[in-house]
């Protein structure tokens, strides 16, 4: 019994251990207020226009979720649902890169009608990615008839670099910009069993950016409605 307790507490302690991430969030407000009325909708979209630019769908969805929780009165339309229903106007290579181009897209009566029907007020574009910037160490794993195990130590560094641009559909202008840089180092010591101590770089970047976006849309700039 005692042994079991020891094992459980050790496992819990290991799970609680996690690597750290350093986040730097910058925000530029180009308009004094970003109005949001009850019933307004917002869409968060990722940029994928070239082979190198591949904003993760998971991050886009995470930011959308944070915004939905933080700005309770606003409806967030999921990216895939929006892109499919507005096909072909927001595909990787046809999506507008500037608010002026968006106005041209809205010159299409069917598109404008649908935007109006959905009550979309803001477009939030996310561009960037999380990449492995450094790695070191080595680990050997082997499996045999009697079992298996790993020995060694590995460490790696992930860097997230994202920029979010907010477009107002009423004025067809860019109203704000939030940029995030997050760096985190993960560790994986292995003595029979590998113990991953992972830095949630993408998740932390999402949290930082999401909180800043919520502040951006909050009436009181200092108020943060989201839970950390």
């Amino acid at each position, binding site marked *: 019994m005692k042994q079991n307790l020891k094992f459980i507490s050790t496992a819990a302690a290991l799970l609680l251990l996690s690597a750290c991430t350093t986040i730097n969030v910058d925000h530029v407000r180009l308009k004094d207020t970003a109005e949001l009325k009850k019933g307004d909708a917002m869409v968060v979209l990722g940029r*994928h226009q070239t*082979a*190198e630019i*591949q904003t*993760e769908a998971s991050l886009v969805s995470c930011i959308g979720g944070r915004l939905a929780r933080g700005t309770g009165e606003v409806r967030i339309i999921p990216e895939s649902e929006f892109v*499919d*229903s*507005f*096909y*072909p*106007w927001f*595909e*990787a*290579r*046809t999506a507008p890169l500037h608010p002026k181009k968006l106005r041209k897209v809205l010159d*299409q*009566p*069917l*598109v404008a009608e*649908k935007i109006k029907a959905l009550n979309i007020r803001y477009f939030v574009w996310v561009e960037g990615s999380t990449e492995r910037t450094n790695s070191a160490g080595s680990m050997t794993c082997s*499996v045999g*008839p009697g079992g298996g195990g790993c020995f060694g130590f590995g460490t790696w560094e992930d860097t997230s670099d994202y920029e979010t641009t907010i477009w107002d559909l009423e004025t067809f202008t860019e109203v704000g910009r939030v940029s995030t840089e997050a760096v985190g180092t993960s560790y994986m010591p292995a003595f029979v069993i590998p113990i991953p101590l992972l830095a949630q770089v993408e998740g932390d970047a999402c949290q930082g950016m999401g909180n800043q976006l919520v502040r951006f849309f909050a009436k009181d700039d200092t108020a943060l409605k989201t839970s950390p």
Partner: protein
Amino acid sequence: MLDKMLRVRGIMKSNWFTHKSICLLAVALISGCANSVVVKPDIPRPLVERLDLKTNLVFTDTFNDYVYLESEKKRGSLKSLNFADAQTTMFRQVFSSVTNLVEEGSSEYDLAIEPEILDFQYSEPSETKLKQYEIWIKYRLKLLNNTEDSIADWTIKGYGKTPTGLLTSASSAFNAATNIALRDVGAQLSIRFPKQRVIKTLVDGGTPRVIATKAERIQQALDKKAAEEQKAKDRAAEAIAAKERREKEKQARKEKRKNKTKNKSDEVKEAEDVVDEADAAQEGQVASEKVKENEAPTFEEPLVEQEPSADQEPDTND
């Protein structure tokens, strides 16, 4: 079943070990095998205004049955990619939204569109280090008027990519990337099609300029076919010649190796003979020396028997 069989044979002893091994085997099979992928179409209906134009989509048998087959053995993760259904769905979705698509076989149309695949390429993460699967498709669209004269010839390219995921198999990644590439083609067509001069002329009720009549087009197709056949023949002849050349080279190498081996064996034989001779000579010398050692007193004795001298004691036996 496999579980039971292995346990009966005594290869696997415990449940834990069995499940673990099967999982590992499954993972190895998923990640290591070449895939034959059939793309499931996932193309939404374009949100565009319909033109007042009756179009007829013409799909050739080659187009309908198109399957990309990987001939390069080194490229392991894709064996074949069948997106014939996906591409016909895409063209139907697009042209039924942009124009009024007439039923197959109908002769009442303003414009006939015949798509053709010009090129297809793909890349895997292991080849580009980009952590994504990529697909490129290049189409040629032949636009014909209602008398089957050619009025335009367009080339359109589609690009699709999908990132690698921990639980994403290569098949699903190729499926997604192909659908994105087809969506890209469809998006370009939906947006640009109404802006083309030929289409504008047709919509306005005008007659676009013919770039090749039906007869010319047929002739061009025949010429192209003949050229392709000739090219194929040349390629086959070249392949035969290359094979013959390779055979000759192989034969020459074999001969050379044989000669070399023969020379070597001769040399070895000669060397062995020399060694044998030397050994024999040495043996002879040793033997003669031994004989010398044994027979030396005999030879040293005078050939003529001498009478014993006075100081020599006479043999008592005598």
